[in-house]
């Protein structure tokens, strides 16, 4: 194909262009022509098509996401908010923490290992770009039924990809989720979260300011991988032609990224950059247009200077390539020599590809010929905004009428059967086979990791300051009631921070949904966003950023609405955290919170193929009082252990607690059938030394949280009423499932 220049676009206005193949609608193409006052060149068309894709432009979600701004929490803790690569939160002592979660769902279905690996790589670069040292990763994963053949195909690859990349970067993996459900068969969810830490003064932003400053590309060379990944993959539903799209999945090289991290941190430490942006989705198109938009708008780039792995790439392909492990920095001319020196030390390829100008346009040339001449904001920020129609789908009223019909344990034999069944079911079974493939120790600051309620990392060795992160989603509840489901996921993630005694500070999210072109899915999305925004406002937690993943469906069947909520918390002294379980006999066990007949959306109902009913309603005021109680329990040294109740209810919580340190418990429960399996939100089991009884009673009363003594620790069995389950038997049930399926 001959080079299509701006001059040619002006000379040949009527040339037919493949905008539809690039995913642009006719009106979007017309809008580009209107902006430019001519037809776009093929390079410009490539840029607009990737930047205006659903994945990059949030065109379907924007109108809803603005609620996060409208309902923003007034807080001084947020140093950088939504819109940058990742939000930044003040955690005290001069430290700032940045965290973000993103999806890499579609690539992981096509090529599980590389899809998952580059998902980790991408989110880590987002965090690095803020000026932070990445300190941990987490990965919420969702798959089809555990025994489905396709789950066997994708799960081992995805797990190996998450581990292969994260381990090689030297980032501890401190948590996540693994959930199995029919709706994810053919559309697994791979979400990756990264946390980074820096000093306040080290925060970096994506802006190209200062005419004459240099545009520097460093990191891996550009290849043909991931071309059109954004527009082709993330914005289109899978039909039966999956494998044909394999070349659009990026291939990662974690070694290059590890070197890039260390090289970048050294560059940041010497304050050598004015602005910085990583190259992720939409590659150079995104980085150049966003950097230029962040400044005054003017930038000149000589595209032919970009170092290539494949010299046959056309300018359009170079602009769209999603080759991994690349960064773009804006550097003052006086600092470029030192910049190049550091890159040389780390053997990182580095090239000056252009400069910031005092104009308003992003101008890109290829061997001296102008091939792109655009106002960068029109590419990066002024993409189309859709008012997608949305309407409550018919199923909502139908499922609300369904009554849950599941067996509830009465006899001791039934109690034992219930506990063992829940311990062994894939969603609740021990996930060590998966998490043992991740390095949780590297960097030497991991305080908590899976299977704890939250991951916790020490960020200062002298003051013992730390941060905790948890991610949660309950898609079953979101399916029944997406508004409440989002609030409940938020409450659960916050509670998982607080059980250790950390204080929730900020929220990130990864909103995984089906096709936005389906009004029912769009309603689920709108309700979820409304619920999350209302919930965050009520709990006083700022939303620092997030990610939307649409088109998660196979044919006409959408996934369950899956808003994954990440909460970051701070703890002033990690040494004082409340552990998840007890390691000695003679402690009293209490249940905090009331238990109702909440079976709708529960794991027990799911195991009995009951998907209907009415989801619980979130009581966030009570959740906030519970959090206060949990934090006080730590600071006043009342608790010996605390563990959240969620999927699988009290039965699952007790199973996890007794197996953790192999110390049993004797439990007495009224209404045992419901007590074991109900998933009423806002509950925690705590263990205390009997000497702390008065203190606990007082704190619980102060926060108006119901307190019920349920038993004591000790022995080599979990005894519930008359049912005695030896820890050996319980451990066998809990640990056998996953290796049997995937080992």
């Amino acid at each position, binding site marked *: 194909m001959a080079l299509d220049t701006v001059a040619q676009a002006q000379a040949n206005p009527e040339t037919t262009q493949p905008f539809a193949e690039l995913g642009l609608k006719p009106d979007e193409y017309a809008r580009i022509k209107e902006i430019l006052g001519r037809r776009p060149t093929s390079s410009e068309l490539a840029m607009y098509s990737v930047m205006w894709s659903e994945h990059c432009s949030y065109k379907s979600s924007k109108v809803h996401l603005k609620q996060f701004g409208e309902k923003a929490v007034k807080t001084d803790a947020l140093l950088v908010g939504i819109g940058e690569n990742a939000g930044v939160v003040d955690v005290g002592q001069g430290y700032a923490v940045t965290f973000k979660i993103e999806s890499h769902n579609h690539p992981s279905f096509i090529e599980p290992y590389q899809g998952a690996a580059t998902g980790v790589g991408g989110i880590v670069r987002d965090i690095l770009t803020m000026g932070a040292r990445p300190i941990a990763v987490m990965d919420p994963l969702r798959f089809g039924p555990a025994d489905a053949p396709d789950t066997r195909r994708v799960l081992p690859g995805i797990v190996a990809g998450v581990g292969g990349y994260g*381990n*090689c970067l*030297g980032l501890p993996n401190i948590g996540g989720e693994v959930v199995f459900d029919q709706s994810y068969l053919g559309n697994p969810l791979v979400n990756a979260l990264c946390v980074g830490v820096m000093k306040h003064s080290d925060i970096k932003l994506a802006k190209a300011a200062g005419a004459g400053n240099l545009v520097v590309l460093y990191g891996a060379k550009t290849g043909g991988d991931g071309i059109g990944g954004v527009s082709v993959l993330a914005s289109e539903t899978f039909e039966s032609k999956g494998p044909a799209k394999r070349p659009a999945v990026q291939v990662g090289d*974690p*070694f290059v990224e*590890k*070197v890039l991290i260390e090289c970048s941190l050294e560059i940041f430490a010497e304050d050598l950059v004015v602005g910085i942006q990583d190259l992720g989705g939409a590659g150079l198109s995104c980085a150049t247009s966003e950097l230029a938009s962040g400044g005054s708008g003017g930038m000149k780039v000589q595209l032919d200077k970009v170092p290539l792995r494949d010299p046959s790439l056309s300018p359009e392909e170079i602009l769209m390539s999603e080759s991994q492990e690349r960064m773009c920095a804006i550097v003052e001319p006086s600092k470029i020599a030192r910049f190049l020196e550091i890159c040389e030390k780390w053997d990182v390829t580095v090239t000056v590809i252009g400069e910031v100008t005092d104009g308003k346009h992003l101008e890109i040339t290829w061997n001296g010929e102008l091939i792109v001449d655009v106002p960068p904001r029109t590419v990066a920020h002024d993409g189309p905004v859709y008012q997608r129609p949305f309407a409550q789908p018919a199923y909502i009223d139908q499922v609300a009428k369904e009554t849950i019909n599941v067996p509830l344990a009465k006899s001791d034999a039934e109690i034992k059967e219930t506990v063992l069944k829940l311990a062994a079911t894939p969603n609740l079974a021990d996930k060590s086979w998966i998490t043992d*493939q991740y390095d949780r120790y590297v960097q*030497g600051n*991991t305080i908590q990791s899976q299977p704890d309620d939250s991951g916790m990392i020490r960020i200062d060795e002298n003051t013992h300051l730390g941060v905790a992160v948890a991610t949660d989603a309950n898609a079953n509840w979101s399916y029944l009631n997406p508004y409440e489901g989002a609030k409940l996921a938020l409450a659960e993630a916050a509670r998982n921070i607080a059980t250790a005694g950390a204080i929730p500070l900020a929220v990130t999210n990864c909103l995984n949904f089906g096709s936005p072109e389906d009004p029912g899915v769009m309603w689920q999305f709108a309700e979820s966003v409304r619920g999350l925004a209302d919930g965050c406002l009520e709990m006083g937690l700022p939303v620092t950023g997030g990610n939307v993943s649409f088109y998660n469906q196979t044919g006409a069947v959408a996934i369950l609405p899956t808003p994954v909520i990440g909460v970051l918390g701070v703890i002033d002294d990690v040494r004082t955290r409340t552990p998840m379980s007890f390691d000695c006999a003679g402690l009293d066990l209490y249940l905090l919170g009331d238990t109702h007949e909440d079976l709708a959306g529960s794991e027990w109902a799911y195991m009995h193929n009951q998907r209907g009913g009415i989801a619980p309603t979130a009581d966030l005021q009570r959740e906030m009082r519970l959090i206060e109680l949990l934090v006080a329990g730590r600071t006043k040294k009342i608790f010996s252990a605390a563990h959240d109740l969620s999927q699988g209810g009290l039965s699952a919580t007790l199973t996890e607690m007794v197996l953790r340190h192999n110390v049993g418990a004797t439990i007495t429960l009224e209404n045992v059938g419901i007590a074991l399996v109900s998933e009423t939100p806002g509950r925690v089991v705590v263990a205390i030394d009997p000497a702390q009884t008065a203190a606990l009673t007082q704190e619980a009363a102060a926060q108006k949280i119901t307190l019920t003594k349920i038993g004591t620790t000790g022995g080599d069995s979990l005894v519930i009423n008359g049912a005695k389950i030896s820890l050996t038997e319980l451990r066998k049930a809990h640990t056998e499932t996953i290796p049997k399926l995937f080992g």
Partner: protein
Amino acid sequence: MKIGVVTFPGTLDDRDAARAVRHAGGEAVALWHNDADLHGVDAVILPGGFSYGDYLRCGAISRFSPVMEPIIKAAQGGMPLLGICNGFQVLAEAHLIPGALTRNHELHFLCRDQKITIENTNTAWTSSYKQGEEIVIPLKNGEGAYMCDDETLAMLEGEGRIIARYVGENPNGSRNLIAGITNERGNIVGLMPHPEHAIDSLTGPSADGLGFFTSVLKALVK
């Protein structure tokens, strides 16, 4: 006492190893792969990671780094040298210790708290332990299966050069449950699990790993 900790491109546990040296009371000195100067250190640690991405055999490229030349020379002269995980692989590639590390028998990365016994306390790195002492430290690797020919194995066993052995189920397929070995002189130790991740029970499964670092400081005082 100054203990050098080498950073190759792709090294991950260098800061952890340096922290462990400091916890034990030593001074950690950062050594750079491309700098053939040992900066006056008394001992050297080759830490874990994926040097050069380990795309060839693990440790195969690092072994030729400029810093390795003086390290090999000094170690052959008796300087204490500890290779942990990827460092163990580098030692094997450099032929400072016999054998090789190959892919775990279950073919995936494994991270877990591992019980090992210390079987030789006469090396520069193990004298703080009691003979036969059981300790728990993290094991985390993809290529940790120790392999050698029968003759070498018999020699290692016969000369008491197996310094640590896995307890219980073989985690990675190592011959004779070998977790670590030493050279004839006892100054060079290759160890697959990670003592630097077990220097306090806050961030590790135990503080059992500290003994490797206190051992070398004692050895240097002598």
